[in-house]
């Protein structure tokens, strides 16, 4: 893809983000922050993508660390968000 197409997507995503997030009530801002935190764990993909072609010990080693970091970010983030949201209940 050429850079301009990617930048178009980038800018549109920013506006979608602003629109969607501004509708989230204060009550849920902590779970929201934790959920978006989990979403940026998607950098894990970068590690997965690079480790195959990577040559040499150092590159492979750094990729494994990046994958481990990304996994902590993703798995921990989604789990802890679920734990929080589970507690939000109406009076029954």
């Amino acid at each position: 893809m050429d850079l301009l197409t990617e930048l178009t997507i980038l800018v549109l995503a920013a506006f979608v983000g602003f629109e969607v997030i501004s509708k989230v009530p204060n009550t849920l801002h902590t779970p929201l922050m934790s959920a978006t935190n989990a979403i940026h764990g998607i950098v894990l993909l970068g590690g997965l993508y690079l480790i195959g072609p990577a040559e040499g010990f150092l590159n492979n080693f750094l990729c494994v660390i990046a994958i481990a970091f990304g996994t902590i970010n993703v798995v921990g983030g989604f789990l802890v968000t679920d734990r929080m949201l589970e507690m939000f209940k109406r009076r029954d």
Partner: protein
Amino acid sequence: MYTATFLQDPDFIRSLYIVAFALFIIDLRLMNHPRTARKGNILGAIGMGIAVIATLLIESVGDYGLIALGVAVGTAVGVPAARSVKMTAMPQMVALFNGVGGGAVALISFVEYREALAGGGGNPALDALIPALFAAIIGSVSFWGSNIAFGKLQELIPGRPIQLPGQQFINIGLLAVCVGCAIAIAAGTESEALFVVILVAAAVLGNMFVLPIGGADMPVVISLLNAFTGLSAAAAGLALDNVALIVAGMLVGASGSILTMLMAEAMNRSIANIFKGGFGGVSVAPAAGDGEAKPVRSTDPADVAIQLSYARKVVVAPGYGLAVAQAQHTVRELADALEKRGVEVLYAIHPVAGRMPGHMNVLLAEADVPYDHLKEMDEINPEFPQTDVALVIGANDVTNPAAREQTDSPIYGMPILDVDKAASVIVLKRSMNTGFAGIDNPLFYAENTSLLFGDAKESVQKVLKEVEEL
């Protein structure tokens, strides 16, 4: 064979990425209500699963053993941490998860650059190189900054601002080193060493930029670093031509930016002012510091119990002091006892109550307070004039009427909970010490205010006992 080729078709993989980021957007959309938020989070997790599987299908992806190793280590660390963390420690946890995300971005950019050099083709094309350099700088700042924020919140390092003389010039210098080296590489210098200099200078900058910020401003910092990691992920997506990374990273960048602005607004401080540092340790000149002891009215648990029991409407204004005293469960028990007597009990939540935006809501939800009783500031403020008793527990500055009235007060203009407009105000306080910002609170001397001194949890327990005996 045919299926294998189909699954590895780049267009098929790209389609999966589209499904993944659509699920992320739906996730954030469903976050707009507590009823649907949990489902949203699960959809987001499914989206992430799809994105990971799609990536593993790419033909050039290999070294599955090493991938499994990385994923196993990450899971072994992440799952127990997420399962066992206390809700009061949520800000630290978010800081830590945020930091590793930023660290991953920085490492990925570095490996990408090393690979390009080792491949013999020299520097990558500029449309990949510039985003990679940006990702390296921001990712490294985010990793180290988040670690410092974690250390401060976990009290591993002192929460008070730590400052060097000329701090701002040092920071500007470090940023100049990062940008300068990045420009040199972009201009054609092929040097791994320069890239390392960028990573190291950004790391020092990350440390330097969070160390001077006081513990109370940490929520803004975490929110900003969250935005940083999101932006760096989006940049990494540009460098790797990966749409899922671009969209997901940018969604987080936008979200983090909004939350940062909202937090700063609720604290009545500009972002620049917060990052200049020094707040929460350097003493702010106390307003009207005449040194004269003004009379306050103190009360006892029995009187508070009577006032609460015969009220029609009670609004609880909790601050972080309530969470520190671990009083949220006792408060909920008191509310239950009052509701049994027909009293309406609501909670007024200031946007900066707690250690991150919305933290107090999570702490009260954990104590089984139903979310429809948690009212945001704009929603509850018009109701205070019809409120019989406002019960302020462990909150100070966010209830300070000086923010509304005294133009010379350091907190003038900060949005506050209008508890002073209730018929009667009861403030639970440990002692007459001024709040953390060192600002006197006229609320304590108001005619309709009485103070109940003591540990928040013990005080609420005593009041609860009295209510039950009435």
